[in-house]
């Protein structure tokens, strides 16, 4: 099959025809950064499957939709109930974005200690835009067109700044909800999190929408951790199955900082969660986990790049996929150990359970090591349901379908259990077990 030919100028189907609705509000540096990014996209186009990093993820369905850029104030169907159903309320600060724009109506910004700023990108752009210059000029356009496209369109998202020594006990929730009202929308949320030395917080990002809506979330989240800062990050991607979701989580870590991210992919027609981590200071630690559960015609792509650029840093990755129907999973994980990054301890594991003979998984764990004193392991496994375990359960009277569900759930349960944050864990347990038709209350007690 040949790829859809895109106009030379646009280099990306109708998507590239989309013009930013800018009206001169941007400051000089921002206008310039956006223009540079747009030119980058114009020059390089959107990735095709010839690009190593997009080999398994075709984008034609996204590029072919005449999206409109989402504007503030849209999303008339959104109610507090919809938001609460999409994202369990964890009781702490909660920023809700509708179609990529902050909604004060559904948000709550109480319970923050002095030293913690939790606000919106739009308000920072209005009040003290220069704070954002290092982020927009740190254009992730060098990675790929969608991050650059976010540079062009991003107007809002979360802005979090933790001053030195600040600890936020309550998890900070970011909810990105889309309601197209029938018009295909592209939203470009951009979130920035800055953790100064010795600060600590938990951040939960949830993406959801209304079924049958066609929309495209093109999200970028940047996290910068100073010395000894610690961020625990969760991401729940539960978009409508008619939606597209491409996200970049870009993390930079200084000395002795700790970052963890746990990702759960449930929704979207095509979804990609890309995580890039730069371990730039000694003894920094990162831990990334993910589960992806494509079924029907869904494609779930996890692309990870961990850059060990300093000595004695540690990185862990564990990704598990369950592929059903004609679902397609991608694990494309790379660990780079730079020259001189001695004492690196890196491991990467990807396990997949295939439930249908029409499902597919492409797994590609990669190590690139330019120094000697390292401890690196990686592995990938693809398996089917354990027939012996299935028989065992059935001989105890558990019906076939329930037995299957139990085994599938058991495969991912380890990942759900790693989410120590209640009631998030419980809500995910329900989401995941409902998907596999098992009893949500497995009760390990």
């Amino acid at each position, binding site marked *: 099959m040949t790829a859809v030919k895109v106009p030379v100028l646009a280099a990306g189907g109708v998507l590239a025809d989309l013009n930013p609705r800018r009206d001169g509000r941007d400051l000089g540096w921002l206008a310039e950064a956006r223009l540079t990014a747009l030119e980058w996209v114009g020059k390089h186009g959107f990735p095709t499957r010839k690009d190593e990093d997009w080999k398994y993820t075709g984008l034609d369905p996204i590029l072919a939709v005449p999206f409109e850029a989402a504007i503030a104030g849209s999303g008339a169907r959104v109610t507090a109930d919809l938001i609460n159903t999409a994202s369990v309320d964890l009781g702490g600060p909660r920023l809700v974005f509708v179609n990529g724009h902050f909604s004060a109506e559904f948000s709550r910004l109480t319970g923050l200690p002095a030293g913690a700023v939790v606000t919106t990108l739009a308000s920072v752009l209005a009040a003290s835009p220069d704070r954002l210059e290092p982020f927009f000029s740190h254009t992730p356009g060098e990675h790929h067109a969608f991050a650059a496209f976010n540079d062009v369109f991003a107007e809002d998202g979360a802005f979090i700044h933790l001053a030195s020594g600040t600890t936020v006990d309550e998890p900070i929730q970011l909810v990105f909800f889309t309601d197209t009202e029938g018009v295909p929308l592209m939203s470009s949320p951009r979130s920035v999190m800055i953790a100064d030395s010795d600060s600590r917080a938990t951040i939960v990002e949830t993406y959801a929408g209304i079924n049958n809506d066609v929309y495209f979330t093109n999200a970028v989240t940047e996290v910068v951790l100073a010395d000894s800062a610690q961020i625990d990050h969760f991401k729940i991607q539960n978009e409508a199955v008619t939606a597209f979701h491409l996200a970049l989580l870009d993390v930079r870590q200084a000395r002795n900082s700790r970052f963890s991210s746990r990702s759960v992919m449930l929704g979207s027609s095509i979804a990609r969660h890309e995580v890039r981590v730069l371990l730039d200071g000694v003894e920094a630690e990162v831990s990334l986990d993910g589960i992806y559960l494509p079924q029907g015609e869904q494609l779930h792509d996890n692309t990870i790049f961990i850059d060990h650029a300093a000595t004695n840093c540690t990185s862990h990755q564990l990704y598990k996929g369950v592929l059903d129907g004609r679902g397609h999973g991608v694990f494309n994980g790379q660990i780079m150990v730079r020259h001189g990054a001695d004492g690196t301890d890196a491991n990467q594991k990807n396990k997949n359970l295939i439930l249908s003979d029409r499902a597919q998984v492409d797994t590609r764990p990669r190590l690139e090591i330019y120094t000697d004193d390292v401890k690196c392991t990686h592995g990938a496994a693809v398996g089917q349901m354990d027939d*012996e375990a299935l028989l065992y359960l059935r001989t105890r*009277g558990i019906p076939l379908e329930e037995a299957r569900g*139990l085994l599938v759930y*058991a495969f991912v349960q380890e990942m759900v259990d790693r989410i120590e944050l209640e009631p998030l864990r419980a809500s995910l347990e329900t989401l995941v077990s409902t998907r596999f038709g098992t009893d949500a209350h497995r009760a390990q007690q």
Partner: protein
Amino acid sequence: MLHIKELHASIDSKEILRGVNLDLNLGEVHAIMGPNGSGKSTLASVLIGRDGYDVSGSVTYEGQDLLALSPEERAAAGVFLAFQHPVEIPGVGNMYFMRTALNSLRRERGEEELDAVDFLALAQERMKLVEMDQTFMSRSVNEGFSGGEKKRNEILQMAILEPKLAILDETDSGLDIDALRVVANGVNALRNEGRAMLIITHHQRLLDYIVPDFVHVMAEGQIVRSGDKDLALELEKNGYTGLKPSSERSAQVGATV
């Protein structure tokens, strides 16, 4: 309750059961002995409905065609197998597994399901039979269990699920003498008028602890001799050599009461 007639089973065109005949009544304990490869475990597999065998002949269980039922339907009808190699199932809690199993059976029989509290009380009582403590229940099914612990876990399931026909496949294999005694005590405690047991074993040793009503010897896919517990002792002395199936004999053996 169980009538096996001319049961043949082959896998990959290799015939393993070559005309097994056997009758069991409620309350009876039958032992099937025989050398490795004689078809003992295949008989157990066919009785619980493992896939992959070409089966002919008939198995009637309480008037039903057992071979027509799925494994879970057989379980609901009261058939249970204590596996020779119980499978490890990481991620499924032992307690949750047993409660799900019991409630599946109860649901199938139109009985009310047990909630977690009632089930815990039941499990705690039955655990005493096999001298298991509660830490086993909070672990994943058989995961990291020693050989003896796995076998005790099988007997615990039997104690909880209360089958009418319990098949024990090489339950003694891999057990030291203490574990063997615990397992055998558990089995003996579950022996009653409402339950038949079929004990498959390679060694006579287990039968010192669980004394069978009938002993059958299997060789080359047939039952070649049947007798009482003394037959096991005789085999212990003389071994299995010289035991070959003969068509005249196999047609009439089998315990009849």
